[in-house]
């Protein structure tokens, strides 16, 4: 189990540290995919990075809570243990396949380096393993590919290389942060198919960070929707799609061009996510919410609404019953 418990984070700014994530709890079991969804600036990537304590290098401060991987407290780990964890038990796939690879080293050099970091193997064994990993992510002629440089590959091929690298330490958990966002629609579809196949075959636990409910529909078992540093709704993926409870979730789903009616204005969400530390007192979404009322001016308990069907579906909104 990968568990985030009551995590709060603050980001540095000229006015001092500003709260960016507040009291977030979520968990990912092996073999399951949790989709963490929200707009840019809602704190979803900050939360995901904290699993590997990557935020520390950017001055991001943990102000509360903890992260456990298979019961082990990540914040109690020393540097060598962290290095083994990163790319070992837990690895990461980032959004930008253009910048995540080093342009001056060959694909082969980069992938064998990662393999040798995590597995005690010879040079020749590492190369053979690299070739089989590249083949397993659907790349043809892996030996030839290993002699090539990132600039010679298309965006889709680079993302496959990064996924192969993420798999090289034989992880139990993968954090995929917008793994398809920078890619063409047709390439996105094939990367989604690949991630789904790998996840099932290896029984991986996956934390999928995205702004796109389409990707969630394709991959996730459970969903957590994040807004302004908080989880505002959580539940099984079918429940969330069939009965989205929080007005934010509904609004995010409705503005997808795939489901909108052509020729009519898209149901956009007015305004933008408030910056860290600029959160309203009451419901944080209220200023952008079409249904906000006086009850929304007071702080809302996290699980203000829980689904009567016992599925574990809940929402941080006091008006769910009235609105449905």
């Amino acid at each position, binding site marked *: 189990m990968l568990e985030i418990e009551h995590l709060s984070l603050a980001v540095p700014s000229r006015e001092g540290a500003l709260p960016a994530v507040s009291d977030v709890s979520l968990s990912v079991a092996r073999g399951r995919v949790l989709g963490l969804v929200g*707009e*840019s*600036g809602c704190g979803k990537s900050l939360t995901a990075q904290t699993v590997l304590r990557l935020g520390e290098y950017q001055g991001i401060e943990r102000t509360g809570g903890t992260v456990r991987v298979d019961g082990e407290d990540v914040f109690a780990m020393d540097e060598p243990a962290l290095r083994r964890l990163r790319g070992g038990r837990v690895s990461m796939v980032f959004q930008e396949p253009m910048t995540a690879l080093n342009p001056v080293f060959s694909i082969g050099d980069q992938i064998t380096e990662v393999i040798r970091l995590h597995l005690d193997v010879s040079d020749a064994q590492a190369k053979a393993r690299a070739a089989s990993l590249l083949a397993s992510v659907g790349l*043809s002629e892996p030996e030839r590919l290993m002699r090539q440089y990132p600039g010679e590959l*298309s*965006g*889709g*091929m680079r993302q*496959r290389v990064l996924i192969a690298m993420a798999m090289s330490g034989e992880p139990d958990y993968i954090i995929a942060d917008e793994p398809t966002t920078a890619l*063409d*629609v*047709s*390439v*996105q*579809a*094939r990367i*989604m*198919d690949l991630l*789904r196949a790998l996840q099932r075959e290896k029984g991986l636990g996956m934390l999928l960070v995205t*702004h*796109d*409910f*389409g*990707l*969630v*529909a*394709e*991959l*996730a078992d459970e969903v957590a929707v994040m807004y302004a540093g908080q989880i505002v709704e959580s539940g099984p*993926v*079918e429940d969330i*799609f069939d009965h989205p409870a929080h007005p934010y979730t509904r*609004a*995010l789903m409705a*503005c*997808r*061009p*795939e*489901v*909108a009616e*052509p020729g009519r*204005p*898209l*149901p*956009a*969400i*007015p305004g*933008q996510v408030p910056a860290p530390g600029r959160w309203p007192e009451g419901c944080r979404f209220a200023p952008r919410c079409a249904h906000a009322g006086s009850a929304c001016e007071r702080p809302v308990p996290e699980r203000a609404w829980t689904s009567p069907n016992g599925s574990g579906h809940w929402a941080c909104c006091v008006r769910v019953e009235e609105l449905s």
Partner: protein
Amino acid sequence: MSLLRVEGLSKSFASGGGLWGGGRRRVQAVRDVGFAIEKGETLAIVGESGSGKSTTARMVMRLIEPDAGRIELLGEDITHLKGRGLRQRRRHMQMVFQDPYASLNPRMRIEHTVGEGLRVHAPELNRRARRERVAQVLEMCGMPASAMDRYPHQFSGGQRQRIGIARALAVEPDLLVLDEPVSALDVSVQAQILNLLAELQREKGLAYLFISHDLSVVRQVADRVAVMFAGRIVETGPIEAVYARPRHPYTRALLDARPAEHPSRRGRGGERLLADEGVAETGCAFRLRCPHAQADCAGFDGRLVAAEAGEASRAAACLHPL
């Protein structure tokens, strides 16, 4: 008379090869592309990276010289116009880029970025009149007039794209060439920008050439669509007709690649494109990836063929249309 008419547009680039250029070859980025755009209308060009859609847009804007073909703006051949003549015609067509982060000068206040075109096209305006006009277009694009005294880094991605649109609109063009204007944005912000574009079109009678890789986005904005693959238009027609019943297998594949609307339909992309690469050098360029390819596709010249009677506005470059 069409607002814009393009015929036989072609362009090739040198590509690949070693560090010193050994083994380079010519890649045909755009071949024999033609289309027309009427006043107030949106034509979308859809395709993957490398399909030639952005090269086509840049040739229309005369930012890249075509190897062959003809570009007509309001009935006038502008293919070889240079200098002052070209600058004057640019008043009629303006471009909006994908990346609002990269396309705004970070050292320039918004007033100057948005007002830049006015210096060229409306030199009679003094600074105060120019500021007024800048305030007006910013507000038209949903930005406060006070934005003009700030710098690009002080705005979010969606706001920067609004500024990019305001810059293009400042000189009151007839045509906006929009190159992936929403693909760098969150879905929620994407919707705001698409709505803004629709509203501006209604109010100003603007025409759009809208470049995108995403058919779902295109469906929200376009009247007609041209699907490009490997430098050629492989299918064209009214958006709803193409969307409802694609004729070219590549168009079908692009539609199938869209993510599921509901988890119960996941992984049902159907016949997904077969490989990352695979463009045939001869015959139909798509035949290596096409689930319906037959022997005669190797001899196909890639011509667009009008669909059956009653669908005169539709055409597909396929010997075995769906």
